[in-house]
């Protein structure tokens, strides 16, 4: 019994604290599993933070594309830092790659620089890089892994943003003046450098390239030339050919054919109001995108000098929304063919033009109207912004050197206190560059991730 009791005592003594040991082991296991879970969670959280920073950095940089890849890169780095990831700090390394896929110029469409990280200069000759990729890597330690002396963990993520139109549906209408004034300085085939209609066509085509360059996007473009009337409905050879109008489409070839068919010719006057009706018809037409978030833009190239010609009067004449109340055959007390005087009928047309433009700019279209003034009379006061009082002057008796520019500045959708939707070009050779700026401004509204 003693023996037995002694064995029992020894057994009890040896089992003392067994539960304690077991519990300590269990707790240690809990602790380790918990530590690993928390560290993994923190790694994943860090990765999400990196992804967010990369997203916002690439979007911030893309705003500068395709005009300025170097600034785009700097902006991306700046915004990555704002979101907590500064290049070279706390184990953060940022890699930026420029991608060109819109085929604006040489090299041909394709990726031009995805193999050369941190070398935006490789894309500078290709002022047309429309995408950038931002990759952020961070080497960091996490609470428990560092406590246990585990090696630092590399966490990384990347994002790309581009001037493509894959996310926001966009309908843009290009309105091109092909009246006689666009023939000034042109050879017989209107193909010489500096010829206004030639430069306009080049500019319009490059605009189409930017807007539709990325296939599979949600962008559509329409095109309408304009003079003083359209044939049909008016049977007159001086009217702009209605067959040249291209409804909203993604078909670059059709648009190219339409734009290239423009042929500057006078005779029917200039009705700046009429093409706005064409834009309205397209936005209401079967090809228009009906999504609530559709971005609508109208780009019009004009000298702003409305004239109402006999050729545009009579059968098939412009509808009342874009027609003066009196016939051009009636005398006008303030007549004149140059830009120094605004006729009564011209003032009426100016008012009509403003009204139709306001319809486009208002709900439900909410279109952004970009105006490119070419050959506008008089000199431009860059500090004259489209204030309410200034725009209320449309249709008054001011001469053309004031009235034309007033109309153009006021029909543009400029932000109050700016002329950010109004561009003036003194020389036709500048038209392509200015239309590029317009393209980028439109594209800026549709940055995609």
């Amino acid at each position, binding site marked *: 019994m003693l023996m037995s009791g002694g064995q029992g005592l020894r057994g009890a003594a040896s089992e003392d604290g067994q539960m304690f040991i077991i519990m*300590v082991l269990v707790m240690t296991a809990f602790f380790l599993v918990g530590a690993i879970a928390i560290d993994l969670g923190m790694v994943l959280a860090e990765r999400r933070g990196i992804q967010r920073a990369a997203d916002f950095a690439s979007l911030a940089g893309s705003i500068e594309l395709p005009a300025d890849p170097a600034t785009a890169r700097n902006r991306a780095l700046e915004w990555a830092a704002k979101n907590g990831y500064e290049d070279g700090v706390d184990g953060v390394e940022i890699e930026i790659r420029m991608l060109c896929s819109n085929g604006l110029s040489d090299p041909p469409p394709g990726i031009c620089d995805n193999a050369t990280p941190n070398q935006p200069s490789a894309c500078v000759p290709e002022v047309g890089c429309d995408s950038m990729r931002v990759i952020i890597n961070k080497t960091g330690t996490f609470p428990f892994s560092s406590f246990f002396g585990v090696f630092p963990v590399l966490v990384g993520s990347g994002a790309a943003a581009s001037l493509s139109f894959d996310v926001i549906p966009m309908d843009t209408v290009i309105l091109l003046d092909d009246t006689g004034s666009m023939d000034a300085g042109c050879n017989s085939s209107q193909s010489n450098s500096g010829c206004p209609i030639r430069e306009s066509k080049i500019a319009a085509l490059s605009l189409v390239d930017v807007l539709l360059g990325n296939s599979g996007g949600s962008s559509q473009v329409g095109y309408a030339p304009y003079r003083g009337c359209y044939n049909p409905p008016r049977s007159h050879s001086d009217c702009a050919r209605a067959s040249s109008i291209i409804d909203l489409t993604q078909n670059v070839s059709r648009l190219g054919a339409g734009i290239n068919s423009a042929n500057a010719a006078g005779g029917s006057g200039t009705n700046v109001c009429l093409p706005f009706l064409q834009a309205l018809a397209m936005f209401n037409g079967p090809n228009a995108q009906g999504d609530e978030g559709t971005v609508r833009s109208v780009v019009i190239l004009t000298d702003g000098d409305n004239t109402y010609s006999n050729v545009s009067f009579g059968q098939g004449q412009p509808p009342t929304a874009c027609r003066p109340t009196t016939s051009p055959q009636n005398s006008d007390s303030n007549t004149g063919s140059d830009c120094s005087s605004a006729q009564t009928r011209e003032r009426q047309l100016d008012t009509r033009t403003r009204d139709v433009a306001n319809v486009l700019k208002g709900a439900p279209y909410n279109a952004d109207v970009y105006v490119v003034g070419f050959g506008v009379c008089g000199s431009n006061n860059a500090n004259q912004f489209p204030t309410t009082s200034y725009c209320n002057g449309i249709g008054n008796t001011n001469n053309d050197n004031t009235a034309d520019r007033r109309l153009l500045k006021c029909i543009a959708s400029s932000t109050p206190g700016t002329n950010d939707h109004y561009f003036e070009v003194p020389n036709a050779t500048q038209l392509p560059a200015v239309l590029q700026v317009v393209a980028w401004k439109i594209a800026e509204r549709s940055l995609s991730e």
Partner: protein
Amino acid sequence: MQDWTSHSAAEGGQSLLEFAVLMPITLLMLLVVLDLAMAVDRKTTLDDALREGARAAALGASETTVAAVVTNGASGLFDAGAVSVCYYDVDGNGSPGDFGDGAMVSIEYTYKFLVGEELTEAFGLGTPEMSMTPEAHVRLEQNISVAPEC
């Protein structure tokens, strides 16, 4: 035999005592781990909601809309008052809220640990909590008409 039985009962009692002492500590640790995991989950939720709100801000949404996007994204973890939206001038024209300027969206949220108030207050401590104030900076892709400066 009697002795042996009494020893066995004593061991059982000791084991029970050890268990009784260690179990609450183990459970407490488990709860702390669970709380930390939930805190990480909350942070992830906040980050996702913040991202959606910041993107909306970049695309021109109003302050109210941005706050609604963030609160919806976080499934009502907090109300709109916890969301701040402000703008800063990047182009240097003195007017924040223009295209290309910056917007900051931030959330103020405090995660209170599940390890209850009663337990911690018994030791004279408040409820353990973790303050989270994530913020996101975006570049505006639209003009904002009403843009309070940061």
